[in-house]
């Protein structure tokens, strides 16, 4: 159990790569924090700095209020699941899981009990006396998880611990991890590039890009009020659609015009926009999630008309790839709708859910602190 305080952490590797830039984070005790971001954005590096495996180039790190920049990993009381497992190849699964406990001089029968409980949670009971090389990739990954969960550390660090599991096992283990978090009441820091994992497990999500923290928020806020175009595009699947657009103001109504048509903003959105000056003719990017688009067969309309280029039938929903006067947008629609490729459709926007960002800075124009 511990709180963490990261103050302007920086990591510059000897080869000059500036992998982590001014990362500041306050993590409360018992939180489940998820670090997400695309490959190479510095997630593992942040985690390794917390573990003490990577020297901190600049900035301060506190665990439970204690300054730990120069504390060695073994004295930080953390458990870590490595991205590439790092199992001890010459030890059985049992010994792998019990190694940390043995070093802490825990009595044998207690070790046995702990390891067996963990093995049960992870479905590894039958493999306890095997060596890592006699396991499949998924089993190895679960063993790596097991090695962490037998411990009772201040902080759990997990680097993509589910990446090698099949879909079913992943859903199962995801739930097990959430349960574990509730049961252990310990701080979890979890790295993933899978935004579904992030959304389903995290109490707080930290979105990283290029070593810079983009936004820290709970899943709902992140979905609803992304701070910039990167976060908007990263969270949600299929990805949010982005269309180049221009703002115009007439009779107190702000409308967003784009190549294939235009929409009028709701008064509520207009109000959130209005403190931005220079509204008229401003170059913006219109963002709209596939679930906030709908289509109907076009009947002589002249605005927001698109051609269906591809249909993806997923059973519970259908994804339509629409050509809106040159802009490709994806709509997520009812599978019962009778829409076929090459159909001409009218696109409906759920206007209250659209996003607008500045074309140049990519910062959201609708984002509000504390919303």
């Amino acid at each position: 159990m511990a709180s963490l305080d990261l103050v302007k952490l920086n990591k510059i590797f000897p080869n000059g790569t500036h992998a982590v830039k001014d990362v500041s984070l306050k993590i409360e005790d018992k939180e489940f924090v998820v670090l997400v971001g695309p490959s190479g954005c510095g997630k593992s590096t942040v985690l390794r700095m917390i573990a003490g495996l990577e020297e901190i180039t600049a900035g301060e790190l506190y665990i439970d209020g204690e300054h730990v920049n120069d504390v060695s990993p073994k004295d930080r009381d953390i458990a870590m699941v490595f991205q590439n497992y790092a199992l001890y190849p010459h030890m059985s699964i049992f010994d792998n899981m019990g190694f940390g406990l043995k070093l802490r001089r825990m009595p044998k029968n207690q070790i046995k009990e702990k390891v067996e409980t963990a093995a049960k949670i992870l479905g590894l009971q039958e493999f306890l006396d095997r060596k890592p090389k006699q396991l499949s990739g998924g089993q190895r990954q679960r063993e790596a998880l097991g090695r962490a969960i037998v411990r009772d550390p201040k902080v759990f660090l997990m680097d993509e611990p589910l990446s090698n599991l099949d879909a079913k096992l992943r859903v199962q283990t995801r739930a097990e991890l959430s349960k574990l978090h509730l049961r252990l009441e310990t701080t979890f820091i979890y790295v993933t590039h899978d935004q579904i994992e992030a959304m389903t497990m995290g109490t707080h999500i930290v979105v990283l890009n290029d070593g810079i923290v983009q936004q820290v928020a709970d899943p709902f806020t992140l979905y609803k009020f992304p701070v910039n175009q990167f976060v908007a595009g990263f969270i949600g699947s299929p990805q949010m659609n982005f269309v180049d657009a221009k703002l115009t103001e007439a009779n107190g109504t702000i409308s967003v015009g784009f190549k294939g048509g235009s929409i009028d903003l709701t008064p509520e959105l207009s109000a959130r926009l209005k403190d931005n000056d220079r509204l008229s003719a401003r170059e913006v990017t219109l963002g709209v999630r596939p679930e906030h688009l709908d289509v109907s067969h076009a009947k002589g309309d002249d605005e927001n008309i698109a051609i269906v280029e591809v249909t993806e039938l997923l059973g519970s929903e259908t994804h339509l790839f629409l050509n809106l006067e040159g802009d490709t947008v994806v709509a997520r629609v009812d599978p019962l709708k009778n829409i076929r490729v090459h159909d001409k459709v009218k696109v409906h926007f759920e206007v209250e859910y659209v996003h607008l960002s500045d074309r140049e800075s990519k910062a959201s124009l609708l984002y509000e602190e504390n919303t």
Partner: protein
Amino acid sequence: MKKSLKPYDILKRVGFNFMIIFVLLYLLFPFYWAVNSSLKTESQLFMTPATAVPRDPATLEFSPTLQNYSVVLRDGQFLRGLANSTIVATASTSLALIAGSFAAFALGKLRFRGRRPALYLILAMTMFPQVTVLTGLYAVITVLGLSAIVSMIFSYLLFTLPFTTWVLTSFFKGLPNELMESAQVDGATPFQTFRRILLPLTAPALVTTGLLAFIAAWNEYLFALTFTAIEPGSRTVPVAIAFFTGAVAHQEPFGEIMAAASLVTIPLVVLVLIFQRRIVAGLTSGAIKG
């Protein structure tokens, strides 16, 4: 269905096998000749032409004799030499492996200033010809008043230690860093990491370098000859053999020397046979992804 071979392929195969046979003959002939000679009596040894197997000079019947072996095995000098060699080779090999694995762990896995110069310095130690170091070493040993056995143990480290350190360093380097990091996070001290995680994984390399160091120490002649000059009781086997006087005076005991030489290779062969099963590759498989 039979595959028809092109003339070129046949040529390649024949050439390849021919080469293998040549290399085998080249390697094994000296050993074969030693064994052959060791089974001959004095008179058989002087037959012309020399026979490929021991034959009776008159009837040319196949008639080997174990007389040389029985003489050698009753020779106090030789048995003493065997014991001395065992002590010296075992001690210097163990020391080389212990010191070498520590050094290799540091050089291969820890980061510190002067690592690279240290590596090259170690390599440089092996570059001087033995004869050139000999005088200096002899002076040091006389000043320190070390016994011949101890002197040999330490001077053999001169060539076994750099070699084991180099080989083990590259081996340690090849072990995944994540294993060390994972042990650290599990709460292991650097020594525990070395002892419990990395050392077991270097077992194949330890066995291989240990064997080679042992063989080098076992067969060493120049240092042993010098250091035991005034201490004949400490002669190792190669020196003892060279000093054989034989049962008959004023006559080179060629057969006995060959018998002794054949006998001293036996421990080495046995060692290799015992340890070869432990030289297993791919011991780290399963440690990390991919």
